[in-house]
């Protein structure tokens, strides 16, 4: 969430040039090394190609080609003097839904690639929809392969308007469009004489400048407890008891009144401890240890929250669920649900509807989910879950479902 790191996801069809785009970004920002580039060159020549095929730089495991890794999101890194970038790269093939859900869950921005020859197709809409569902509110629409439509401005504007009309229906998103040719290098990291009609920022400039970090800091204070710290007595800490965690949202100051959930015990923050010295204040995403004025029964899975506007404590809620496993969802089957640092027993007792990600229509009645199905369900938990709606807080509104084989079979966002 910080302005110095941008986590973004890339999605696109199989042939719309996503690998080429990422490869070019890596090479032109020195996120790829010469020996890796040489390797990609050699591989391309072995396959009968010539020169460098940027896409081979991002070609991953042999296993993925042979048999397929379950979720094959690949993480790539590059940096410019302005920012560090973490790309969660989701493949364009048929297993797109669960991959895209996974990659979008950690991203603040999505780059949607559109082939200028084909314009906005079903898959483009599907990608934008799923990213939006996972809370992404910043989109860069990169209209690629402009070289194949003679760099025509009219074609770019036609596609841009088409996409804008669609995304308006989703609401609340900031959209940036840029015409590019990943293959020829136009408007990726370099300006383009062939598209002098385009005066906006090039793709890399957009990535460097779009601000995405406001959200988590402005929310109410939430601190899921990871561990209790009870070190052996020392001169400096004769009787230390602290609560380790990372601030999920908002900020906290020494002296603030807080409430511990689900017990609803009230107390005051007496210290914010780090090895680098005590702090007066801590912010979203900071890993700290808090000390409290009162000796309370607080443990892993509890949530320390600001006193006004605390999160909800629920044993029943509604959620949007993406089913990821090859084994289908069983209603009223006992699963394990993990949410923040809490693990509870849970059952999914009703499916309200399934979303058709192509038409965005709701299908019901439905009695089971299969791989890549997304829809609205009702969940009951044995112990209370301390949560916010995902649309308000991505850190305290998301959960995973684990089955008796210890596999993570689904991911969900709480709608309450």
């Amino acid at each position, binding site marked *: 969430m910080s302005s110095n790191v941008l986590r973004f996801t890339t999605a696109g069809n199989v042939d719309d040039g996503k690998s080429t785009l990422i490869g070019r970004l890596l090479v032109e920002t020195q996120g790829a090394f010469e020996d890796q580039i040489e390797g990609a060159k050699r591989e391309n020549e072995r396959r009968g190609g010539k020169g460098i095929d940027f896409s081979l730089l991002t070609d991953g*495991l042999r296993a993925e080609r042979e048999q397929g890794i379950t979720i094959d999101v690949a993480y790539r890194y590059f940096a410019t003097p302005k920012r560090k970038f973490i790309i969660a790269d989701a493949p364009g093939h048929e297993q797109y839904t669960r991959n895209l859900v996974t990659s979008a869950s950690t991203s603040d921005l999505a780059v949607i690639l559109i082939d200028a020859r084909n314009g906005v197709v079903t898959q483009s809409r599907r990608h934008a929809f799923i990213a939006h569902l996972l809370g992404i509110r910043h989109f860069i629409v990169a209209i690629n392969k402009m070289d194949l439509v003679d760099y025509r401005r009219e074609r770019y504007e036609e596609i841009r308007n088409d996409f804008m009309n669609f995304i308006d229906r989703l609401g609340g998103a900031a959209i940036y469009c840029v015409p590019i040719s990943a293959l020829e290098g136009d408007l990726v990291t370099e300006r383009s004489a062939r598209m002098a009609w385009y005066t906006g920022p090039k793709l890399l400039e957009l990535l460097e400048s779009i601000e995405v970090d406001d959200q988590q800091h402005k929310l109410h204070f939430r601190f899921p407890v990871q561990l209790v710290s009870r070190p052996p007595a020392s001169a400096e800490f004769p009787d230390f008891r602290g609560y380790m965690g990372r601030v999920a949202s908002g900020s906290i100051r020494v002296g603030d009144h807080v409430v511990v959930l689900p017990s609803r015990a009230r107390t005051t923050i007496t210290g914010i401890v780090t090895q680098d010295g005590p702090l007066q204040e801590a912010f979203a995403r900071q890993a700290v240890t808090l000390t409290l004025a009162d000796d309370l029964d607080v443990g892993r899975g509890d949530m320390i929250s600001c006193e006004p506007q605390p999160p909800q404590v629920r044993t029943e809620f509604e959620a949007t669920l993406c089913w990821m496993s090859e084994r289908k969802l069983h209603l009223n089957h006992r699963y394990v649900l993990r949410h923040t640092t809490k693990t509870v027993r849970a059952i999914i007792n009703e499916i309200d509807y399934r979303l058709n990600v192509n038409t965005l229509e709701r299908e019901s009645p439905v009695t089971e989910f299969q791989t890549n199905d997304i829809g609205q369900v009702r969940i009951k938990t044995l112990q209370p879950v301390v949560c916010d709606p995902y649309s308000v807080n991505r850190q305290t509104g998301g959960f995973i479902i684990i089955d008796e084989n210890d596999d993570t079979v689904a991911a969900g966002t709480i709608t309450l």
Partner: protein
Amino acid sequence: MVVGIELERVWLAFTTMTHDWTHLRELESESIYILRETVAQFRNPVLLYSVGKDSSVLVHLARKAFYPGPLPFPLLHVDTGYKFKEMLEFRDRFTKQIGARLIVHRNEDSIAAGAHPLKLGVARCCGQLKTAALLHALDKYQFDAAIGGARREEERSRAKERVFSLRDAFGQWDPRRQRPELWSLYSGAIHEGETIRVFPLSNWTERDIWQYIVQENIPVVPLYYAQERLVVRRNGTLIPADDSMHLKDGEVPEKVWVRYRTLGCVPCTGAVESRATTLEEIAEETGVAKISERSTRIIDHGANTMEDKKREGYF
């Protein structure tokens, strides 16, 4: 009134964040969170301490994560018998200084049988002295989670690695059984006999590592600093030549200004030509490095890829 205070606070939070919250703080915070999740979710974790720069950063982060408490897990060094003597000296001094519990494990049978890369080939030598030794140590001490310093940026096959990476009862990595990882929810659910490799530095790059070492003034093995050293040139790699047992017939050592970008076993770790003698100079050199660091590791060359090694249980 209340609204005024709230607004002021949001503004304060904002300005503080944008001034102090660097990408290194973000990475540090994420890694600390992962280390704490590991201790919370596993019965008997261990930190795989290779004495290299990534391990040094990892130990530094672990100390921060559990402050003011002690490290809640031991450090395990898999010693092949071919490690640089500077590494062993540093290891013993440093772990003593921070009061860490150090376990050194060696595959004594293979070492006694004279395992050497020039004799067995690199892949088999690694298999015996590193992979087998590591799996044996995990089993001997019944560790259920092994924390390592691997980074996704290091090598192509690591780009899809999970933060909590599942290994079966034979220590092997099965791509089909890796779990999806969403938000910051890492699942440590495992069956009896299975283990998890935890990679808290997943999102760090070599450049981040050096920048952080400079920022935090983290001690590292002197081999990372450039000085004149005896090396031989073999297939474009500069191999240390202090000990003639690692040389092939006809190879003539020469003195060159070099430093090491990664540290492994003496016969298989290549040096790079460099004049960087301070942390700042190293960080700067890394910022403009054009060759990936793993290119100096013989283990990654040849037909037996990193992916194969991972499948067999290599780190």
